[in-house]
């Protein structure tokens, strides 16, 4: 296994609010090897986007991050704002946001906005070099050059999403986060964009984190799946294992509450209840109040994340501890 480009060590994120501290992400440790594609899956409010924004260090002022986020040997948590804007954001880590239309300025042309990114982050480039770069990056996401002269509202959803991906690739970063990048798109466009992502990953040798609540998307573009629930990592597994043999009750419920295209039609189960109040998270396993297999022990102590097979980690007391790797 190649070395990790990114390693999260005991990352916790809390928001200070008027009602107290909201524990949005709790003790997440995760290895992202170079060239990997990690899928972060979970319901809304599970902390997926908070974690992504923390990596970009774009969290609002009232957020507190503890733990370490080691990216290429350096800790992102302790970087200052000026260090981050010189040579980190866009250059090393970039992000493709969900609402592409809201992520761009509505009153500037797309070309102008892209060029601004280059002017700020790569000031050594000359004007013709910048134009060349814009042209190259648009070609690689298969957009015509006229997009540069367009305003965001003039483009369709698919084209906007491609522009956002182009923007993410602009400074040629080794690491790219896709936060629900295809959620608002129609099925055919979505498949096209996911294919592009696959191709670009190879072309740019990208390491990616793909955030989605849709297990179909996760299935299409990731090699490892990390399940987040109420800020806790519940299961980390290779993609095939996650879909064929999910171990955590929450992962099982997530997969089985999606209607299928084939096979026998059975009544969908869903997951009763809702996310716990994170200003006052339950003791023990955060999924326990909704878990069909929960025992009293689950409500008392947080189970550790245990490696049940190589590369397969599960946080559940109910798992028979098979082949525990120390």
């Amino acid at each position, binding site marked *: 296994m190649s070395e990790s480009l990114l390693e999260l060590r005991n990352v916790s994120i809390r928001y200070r609010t008027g009602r107290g501290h909201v524990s949005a992400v709790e003790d997440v440790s995760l290895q992202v090897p170079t060239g990997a594609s990690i899928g972060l899956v979970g*319901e*809304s409010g599970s902390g997926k986007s908070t974690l992504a924004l923390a990596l970009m260090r774009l969290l609002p002022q009232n957020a507190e991050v503890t733990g370490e986020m080691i990216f290429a040997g350096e800790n992102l948590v302790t970087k200052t704002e000026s260090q981050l804007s010189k040579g980190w954001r866009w250059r090393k880590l970039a992000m493709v946001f969900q609402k592409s239309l809201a992520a761009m300025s509505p009153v500037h042309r797309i070309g102008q906005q892209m060029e601004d990114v280059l002017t700020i982050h790569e000031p050594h480039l000359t004007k013709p070099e910048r134009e060349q770069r814009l042209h190259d990056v648009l070609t690689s996401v298969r957009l015509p050059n006229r997009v540069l002269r367009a305003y965001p509202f003039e483009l*369709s*959803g*698919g084209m906007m999403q491609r522009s956002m991906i182009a923007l993410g690739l602009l400074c040629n970063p080794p690491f790219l986060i896709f936060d629900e990048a295809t959620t608002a798109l*129609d*099925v*055919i*466009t*979505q*498949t*096209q964009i*996911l*294919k592009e992502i696959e191709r670009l990953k190879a072309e740019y040798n990208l390491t990616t984190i793909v955030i989605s*609540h*849709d*297990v*179909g*998307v996760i*299935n*299409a573009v990731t090699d490892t799946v990390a399940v987040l629930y109420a800020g806790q990592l519940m299961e980390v597994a290779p993609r*095939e294992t996650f*879909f*064929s043999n999910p171990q955590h009750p929450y992962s099982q*419920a*997530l*997969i089985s*509450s*999606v*209607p*299928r*295209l*084939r*096979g026998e*039609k059975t*009544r*969908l*189960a*869903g*997951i*009763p209840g*809702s996310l716990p109040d994170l200003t006052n998270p339950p003791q023990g396993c955060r999924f326990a109040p909704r878990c069909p297999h929960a025992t009293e022990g689950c409500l008392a102590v947080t189970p550790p994340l245990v490696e049940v097979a190589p590369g397969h980690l599960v946080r559940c007391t109910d798992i028979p501890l098979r082949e525990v790797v120390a």
Partner: protein
Amino acid sequence: MSEAPLIVADELQCLFTVRRGPVEFIRGKASRIHAVDTVSFTLERAEILALVGESGCGKSTVGRMLVKMEEPTAGALTFAGETVNALSGARLKEFRRRAQMIFQNPFEAFDPRLTIGTSLQQAMQIHNIGKDQHDRLQRIVTVMERSGLTPAEDFLSRYPHELSGGQSQRIATVRVMLLSPEFVVADEPVSMLDVSVRADILNQLLDLRDELDMGIVFITHDLAVARYIADRIAVMYLGMFVEVGPAEEILANPRHPYSQALLSNTLPAGDEDRITEPMPIGGEVPTPVDIQPGCRFANRCPFAFDRCFKETPILQAHGGKTEVACHLLG
């Protein structure tokens, strides 16, 4: 009277007029968007029909016409034997109770300044359901608790912004149930919800159908959801039905190239779901302005030939119960 099908849509058409630019404005020349073009179908009681298609294909417009929120430009709509176009006065009000709609965005379905209790009571008051306020509250509480919203009293005093998406959508469904309608249009009711809540809302609709013999038109872009909930599926493209038939038949063997494209591009939630490679389809759904004759899918269809650009195909059965509008099938 109960012999008549619940809904008969006969060549419904809905055109929107757009004026483009000052020159056209002065000359009074207008372009027309063919949002829905000659859609015909029947819906029986206790039947669920799913309208499937990409955004902009006119599926919501069909839904809105069915509950008389949009007037068809041409065509006739019959509801339980009555012509809907001509309804007025008391009969129209009665229709408004019998035909309900559930919207995609549950946060916009309630007045933000009214508590949930007030909103629910208003709906009943307008249709003279329940003897007095006490009786109405009683009914609301019963229905809410049956839908898993417990304790119901807790929700009644809340405002819409204090609810999660799943809760709001469940309450929207409760509001519909309180009026005991015979027909419901559900416009993407689960697309904004988490998967864990989705299953609940879908099951709730299936139960309603079973209990009240309700006919449902379910609008969705997700074929897997359509398969789960519907008896029949109608695939729409640019305002027309391109394929209509039993849900299982369409999923097992889509005949229209667009249905094939849609199905093969739907992301499988597990490897056993995937059977074919995604069919590559170029371009995006165009806006149906000033439509020319010919198949509307022709310019994106990988199998299109001369005839497709000249002659509009009509829906017809080619063996089996499924009707397809495609020249490839003869």
